[in-house]
């Protein structure tokens, strides 16, 4: 039996604010109110100073491509139907990294260091996936 649906995240109590925000079109990350550091992915306390006083802050959604690849083979049947697609490690301007697809962009124009901004891809009624697209000046 093949899986024809996309691999979907399942939120925990800790990560639910991230996914709820994404559904509203906002990218949020954890910020430590004690030592001022940001962290991603979510943890129950600050890994730097052990403070449990973490708040969710909204990222301005911009960053640059740390590195990337173009997939010619999908990770599952659902993604196989969507090749070629780009997977990139994004470094947000707030200093944390996350994985995403580069969407709505010309694949040949993706490069390391390229500027990107967040967009959201609705997967289900409840889940929207943060994605990134190349900023317009690069695609011009």
């Amino acid at each position, binding site marked *: 039996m093949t899986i024809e649906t*996309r*691999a*979907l*995240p*399942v*939120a*925990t109590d800790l*990560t639910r604010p991230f996914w709820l925000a994404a559904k509203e079109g906002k990218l949020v990350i954890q910020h430590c109110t004690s030592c001022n550091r940001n962290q*991603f*992915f979510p943890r129950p306390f600050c890994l730097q100073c052990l403070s449990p006083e973490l708040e969710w802050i909204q990222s301005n959604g911009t960053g640059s491509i*740390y*590195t*990337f*690849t*173009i*997939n*010619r*083979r*999908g*990770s*599952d049947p*659902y*993604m196989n139907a*969507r090749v070629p*697609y780009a*997977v990139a*490690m994004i470094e947000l301007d707030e200093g*944390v*990294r*996350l*994985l*995403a*697809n580069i969407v709505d962009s010309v694949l040949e124009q993706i*490069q*390391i*260091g390229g500027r990107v901004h967040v967009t959201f891809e609705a*997967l289900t009624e409840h889940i929207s*996936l943060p994605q990134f697209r190349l900023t317009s000046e690069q695609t011009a």
Partner: protein
Amino acid sequence: MNPLLKNSVAIVGAAESDLGKVPGMSALELQAQATYRALQDSGLTLKDIDGVFAHTDDKMAAMLLSEYLNIKPRYMDSTNVGGMSNVLHIRHAIAAIAAGMCSVALITYGSTQLSSSTRKVGGAFDDPRSPAGQFVAPYGQLSPIGYYAMAANLHMHRYGTTSTQLAEVAVAARKWAQLNPLAYKKEPLSIDDVLNSPLIADPLHTRDICLVTDAGGAIILTTKERAKDLRRPPVYVMGIAESFSHHYTPFNVEDWLDTSVAETAQSAMDMAGVSRQDIDVVQIYDHFTIGVIQALEELGFCKRGEGGDFVSGGRLAPGGAFPINTSGGGLSYNHPGMFGMLLILEAVHQLRAEAGARQLSKAEIALVHAPGLVFSANSTMILGV
């Protein structure tokens, strides 16, 4: 590791199971077969074994194997940290033997990934609530392929490394495989063949990526005192080190081209009391061509960024200035999901001067380097005779 433990144990038995495509056997049966052959090699019996270290796709592999062979060990370890797991088991066995928890350790691996088609290209993100399940799996990242493709892109961007240089690694591996009767892929392979093979995740082509085969292996370790009276020349563990960074979500790894290989290499060489110039045999886990280039740099055999030049002109191939991965490696010999066992076995064959047409002229000290998962863990081991 405590330098007093240098040469405290030796590999006294070593054997592969059947390799390549073995459709009629289970992973457990491959381990049992390799164990039988390793025991024959050593002259020891099942009754001598009191420590069992194993891993397969089963999380309780050491219990499974012990039940199957009716071994009642005093110590067991089924730790799975990816491809390097059997190197880790050797280090743990040294500690266990030193602590008196066991005296003869059996270390095995077996996999039928080819025959049973169990290789998951998408990686093992079974729990959709895990960090990788939430923040990696939805993006269709191939794992581990995608992460090493990303590292290759970074290497190319930073240092100007080329796909042709990556292909050199695959071509050298194939030339070694042609000297190995047990190799799975032996047909001629050129740089152009690698470059013209289908891209899987840019810039990695099919031939930049290791094989998927069935295979298993076993080694038997015991104290240096006991090793002296056994059938085969002891292969001593001179130095060994391991390090850990992450699981399948390397978001917090600052530099993907600096993955703590240097630390394990230095630590293992310090324990062994050897320098790079002393090493005759180098076995580097070649899951991907980029992995070899990156490891050569991080191990200190060439400068950072010079790995592409270092491997060019057939330098890694038979007759080259820096021959490595003499079995043909994971790229052309066999790669049963986790290559660590076969990497160790090839070092043993070289040190025991039983490698046939691929035997290196001088083989007294060997370096084995293996990572686990997606540059998540590292192990370096120095063996000597």
